[in-house]
Protein backbone atom coordinates (compact mmCIF):
# COMPACT_ATOMS: atom_id res chain seq x y z
CA UNK A 1 0.00 0.00 0.00
CA UNK A 2 1.52 3.33 -1.12
CA UNK A 3 -0.30 5.71 1.26
CA UNK A 4 1.23 9.21 1.04
CA UNK A 5 4.15 9.59 -1.37
CA UNK A 6 6.44 12.61 -1.42
CA UNK A 7 9.11 13.53 -3.93
CA UNK A 8 11.92 14.41 -3.90
CA UNK A 9 13.32 13.02 -0.64
CA UNK A 10 16.30 15.38 -0.69
CA UNK A 11 17.01 18.62 -2.51
CA UNK A 12 19.56 21.41 -2.33
CA UNK A 13 18.52 24.79 -3.68
CA UNK A 14 20.36 28.04 -4.17
CA UNK A 15 18.89 31.25 -2.76
CA UNK A 16 16.29 32.63 -5.16
CA UNK A 17 15.59 29.35 -6.96
CA UNK A 18 12.09 27.87 -7.12
CA UNK A 19 10.87 24.31 -6.84
CA UNK A 20 7.82 22.18 -6.26
CA UNK A 21 7.50 19.43 -3.67
CA UNK A 22 5.14 16.76 -4.93
CA UNK A 23 2.65 14.89 -2.75
CA UNK A 24 0.15 12.26 -3.78
CA UNK A 25 -2.11 9.97 -1.77
CA UNK A 26 -4.06 6.92 -2.88
CA UNK A 27 -6.47 6.66 0.06
CA UNK A 28 -9.15 8.99 -1.35
CA UNK A 29 -8.75 11.31 1.64
CA UNK A 30 -10.49 14.67 1.59
CA UNK A 31 -8.02 16.52 3.75
CA UNK A 32 -4.38 17.13 2.87
CA UNK A 33 -1.72 19.14 4.68
CA UNK A 34 1.79 20.45 4.35
CA UNK A 35 3.92 20.77 7.48
CA UNK A 36 7.48 21.83 8.05
CA UNK A 37 9.63 20.48 10.86
CA UNK A 38 12.71 22.30 12.03
CA UNK A 39 15.39 20.54 14.13
CA UNK A 40 14.14 19.63 17.60
CA UNK A 41 10.73 21.15 16.94
CA UNK A 42 7.24 19.93 16.34
CA UNK A 43 5.38 20.42 13.08
CA UNK A 44 4.16 23.77 11.79
CA UNK A 45 1.24 23.84 9.38
CA UNK A 46 1.99 25.63 6.12
CA UNK A 47 -1.17 25.06 4.07
CA UNK A 48 -4.06 22.66 4.12
CA UNK A 49 -6.87 21.60 1.82
CA UNK A 50 -10.31 20.23 2.63
CA UNK A 51 -10.96 18.99 -0.89
CA UNK A 52 -10.16 19.50 -4.55
CA UNK A 53 -10.18 23.20 -5.42
CA UNK A 54 -10.14 24.39 -1.78
CA UNK A 55 -7.00 25.46 0.06
CA UNK A 56 -6.27 27.63 3.06
CA UNK A 57 -3.31 29.05 4.93
CA UNK A 58 -1.88 27.50 8.04
CA UNK A 59 0.47 29.01 10.62
CA UNK A 60 3.49 29.70 8.36
CA UNK A 61 2.33 30.20 4.73
CA UNK A 62 4.69 33.01 3.67
CA UNK A 63 6.98 32.03 0.81
CA UNK A 64 4.85 29.06 -0.24
CA UNK A 65 1.95 28.33 -2.53
CA UNK A 66 -0.27 25.29 -3.02
CA UNK A 67 -2.91 24.00 -5.39
CA UNK A 68 -5.35 21.11 -5.22
CA UNK A 69 -6.67 20.27 -8.66
CA UNK A 70 -7.39 16.62 -7.81
CA UNK A 71 -8.20 14.67 -4.66
CA UNK A 72 -4.92 12.77 -4.94
CA UNK A 73 -2.35 15.54 -5.46
CA UNK A 74 -1.32 18.48 -3.29
CA UNK A 75 1.94 20.07 -4.53
CA UNK A 76 3.79 22.71 -2.50
CA UNK A 77 5.55 25.45 -4.44
CA UNK A 78 8.50 27.40 -3.07
CA UNK A 79 9.13 30.66 -4.88
CA UNK A 80 12.42 32.52 -4.39
CA UNK A 81 13.91 30.07 -1.89
CA UNK A 82 15.50 31.54 1.24
CA UNK A 83 17.78 29.95 3.88
CA UNK A 84 14.89 30.21 6.37
CA UNK A 85 13.07 27.61 4.30
CA UNK A 86 15.70 24.99 5.06
CA UNK A 87 13.64 22.32 6.78
CA UNK A 88 12.05 18.90 6.48
CA UNK A 89 8.67 19.07 4.80
CA UNK A 90 5.93 16.55 5.48
CA UNK A 91 2.79 16.03 3.52
CA UNK A 92 -0.15 14.37 5.29
CA UNK A 93 -3.69 13.32 4.54
CA UNK A 94 -6.73 12.34 6.56
CA UNK A 95 -10.30 11.18 6.12
CA UNK A 96 -13.00 12.84 8.16
CA UNK A 97 -16.12 10.75 8.67
CA UNK A 98 -19.30 12.74 8.26
CA UNK A 99 -20.32 14.45 11.48
CA UNK A 100 -16.96 14.10 13.18
CA UNK A 101 -13.76 16.08 13.11
CA UNK A 102 -11.26 13.59 14.45
CA UNK A 103 -9.14 11.31 12.36
CA UNK A 104 -5.69 9.89 11.84
CA UNK A 105 -3.13 11.86 9.89
CA UNK A 106 -1.14 9.72 7.49
CA UNK A 107 2.26 11.17 6.75
CA UNK A 108 4.70 10.79 3.93
CA UNK A 109 8.36 10.09 4.64
CA UNK A 110 9.35 13.73 4.31
CA UNK A 111 11.39 15.88 1.93
CA UNK A 112 14.59 17.36 3.30
CA UNK A 113 15.28 20.73 1.72
CA UNK A 114 18.46 22.77 2.13
CA UNK A 115 18.73 26.32 0.80
CA UNK A 116 22.26 27.65 0.43
Amino acid at each position, binding site marked *: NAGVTQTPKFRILKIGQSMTLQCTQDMNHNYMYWYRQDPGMGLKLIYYSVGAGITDKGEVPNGYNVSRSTTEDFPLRLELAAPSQTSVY*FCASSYTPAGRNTGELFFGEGSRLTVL
Partner: protein
Amino acid sequence: TQLLEQSPQFLSIQEGENLTVYCNSSSVFSSLQWYRQEPGEGPVLLVTVVTGGEVKKLKRLTFQFGDARKDSSLHITAAQPGDTGLYLCAGATPGGYQKVTFGTGTKLQVIP
Protein backbone atom coordinates in the same frame (compact mmCIF):
# COMPACT_ATOMS: atom_id res chain seq x y z
CA THR B 1 -2.99 30.33 17.24
CA GLN B 2 -3.37 27.48 19.70
CA LEU B 3 -0.18 26.39 21.41
CA LEU B 4 0.59 22.96 22.74
CA GLU B 5 3.53 22.82 25.14
CA GLN B 6 5.15 19.49 25.82
CA SER B 7 7.39 18.64 28.72
CA PRO B 8 10.02 17.54 29.10
CA GLN B 9 11.68 18.43 25.80
CA PHE B 10 14.30 15.72 26.19
CA LEU B 11 14.37 12.59 28.28
CA SER B 12 17.13 10.00 28.54
CA ILE B 13 16.37 7.03 30.75
CA GLN B 14 17.54 3.49 31.40
CA GLU B 15 15.65 0.49 30.11
CA GLY B 16 12.99 -0.59 32.60
CA GLU B 17 12.29 2.85 34.03
CA ASN B 18 8.90 4.54 33.94
CA LEU B 19 8.26 7.99 32.50
CA THR B 20 5.50 10.51 31.89
CA VAL B 21 5.29 13.09 29.12
CA TYR B 22 2.91 16.04 29.40
CA CYS B 23 1.05 18.06 26.79
CA ASN B 24 -0.57 21.30 27.93
CA SER B 25 -2.59 24.08 26.34
CA SER B 26 -4.88 26.94 27.31
CA SER B 27 -7.22 25.95 24.47
CA VAL B 28 -9.92 23.32 24.38
CA PHE B 29 -9.55 20.58 21.78
CA SER B 30 -12.21 18.32 20.35
CA SER B 31 -9.70 15.50 20.33
CA LEU B 32 -6.07 14.94 21.06
CA GLN B 33 -3.68 12.56 19.41
CA TRP B 34 -0.26 11.20 20.23
CA TYR B 35 2.22 10.37 17.46
CA ARG B 36 5.66 8.78 17.52
CA GLN B 37 8.27 9.73 14.98
CA GLU B 38 11.47 7.84 14.28
CA PRO B 39 14.47 9.44 12.54
CA GLY B 40 14.00 9.86 8.81
CA GLU B 41 10.31 8.99 8.90
CA GLY B 42 6.99 10.71 9.26
CA PRO B 43 4.99 10.60 12.51
CA VAL B 44 2.80 7.57 13.12
CA LEU B 45 -0.40 7.72 15.16
CA LEU B 46 -0.39 5.96 18.53
CA VAL B 47 -3.78 6.95 19.92
CA THR B 48 -6.68 9.41 19.72
CA VAL B 49 -8.58 10.52 22.83
CA VAL B 50 -11.84 12.42 22.45
CA THR B 51 -13.65 12.50 25.80
CA GLY B 52 -12.57 14.56 28.82
CA GLY B 53 -11.02 12.24 31.43
CA GLU B 54 -10.62 9.41 28.93
CA VAL B 55 -7.84 6.90 29.56
CA LYS B 56 -6.54 4.59 26.85
CA LYS B 57 -3.93 1.88 27.14
CA LEU B 58 -1.71 0.55 24.38
CA LYS B 59 0.43 -2.24 25.87
CA ARG B 60 2.89 -0.41 28.17
CA LEU B 61 1.66 3.06 27.12
CA THR B 62 -1.16 4.82 28.99
CA PHE B 63 -2.73 7.98 27.58
CA GLN B 64 -5.01 10.34 29.46
CA PHE B 65 -7.06 13.30 28.25
CA GLY B 66 -7.67 16.04 30.81
CA ASP B 67 -11.19 16.59 32.15
CA ALA B 68 -11.34 20.02 30.49
CA ARG B 69 -9.84 18.66 27.25
CA LYS B 70 -6.93 21.12 27.42
CA ASP B 71 -4.14 18.73 28.38
CA SER B 72 -2.97 15.16 28.08
CA SER B 73 -0.32 12.83 29.41
CA LEU B 74 1.52 9.79 28.11
CA HIS B 75 2.91 7.34 30.65
CA ILE B 76 5.28 4.56 29.61
CA THR B 77 5.85 1.67 31.99
CA ALA B 78 9.13 -0.28 31.90
CA ALA B 79 10.53 1.60 28.91
CA GLN B 80 12.26 -0.41 26.18
CA PRO B 81 14.89 0.73 23.64
CA GLY B 82 12.20 0.36 20.97
CA ASP B 83 10.30 3.22 22.64
CA THR B 84 13.06 5.62 21.58
CA GLY B 85 11.76 8.40 19.35
CA LEU B 86 10.12 11.79 19.18
CA TYR B 87 6.67 11.89 20.79
CA LEU B 88 4.28 14.53 19.50
CA CYS B 89 0.88 15.48 20.81
CA ALA B 90 -1.59 17.05 18.40
CA GLY B 91 -4.89 18.76 19.12
CA ALA B 92 -7.82 19.05 16.72
CA THR B 93 -9.75 22.30 16.84
CA PRO B 94 -13.52 22.20 17.32
CA GLY B 95 -15.45 23.12 14.22
CA GLY B 96 -16.00 21.98 10.69
CA TYR B 97 -12.40 21.82 9.52
CA GLN B 98 -10.04 19.22 10.87
CA LYS B 99 -7.17 21.57 11.60
CA VAL B 100 -4.55 19.92 13.77
CA THR B 101 -1.97 21.76 15.90
CA PHE B 102 1.15 19.90 16.95
CA GLY B 103 3.02 20.20 20.20
CA THR B 104 6.70 21.01 20.51
CA GLY B 105 7.68 17.35 20.93
CA THR B 106 9.47 15.21 23.51
CA LYS B 107 12.59 13.40 22.41
CA LEU B 108 12.94 10.13 24.32
CA GLN B 109 16.05 7.99 24.45
CA VAL B 110 15.90 4.64 26.23
CA ILE B 111 19.35 3.28 26.99
CA PRO B 112 19.75 -0.52 27.07
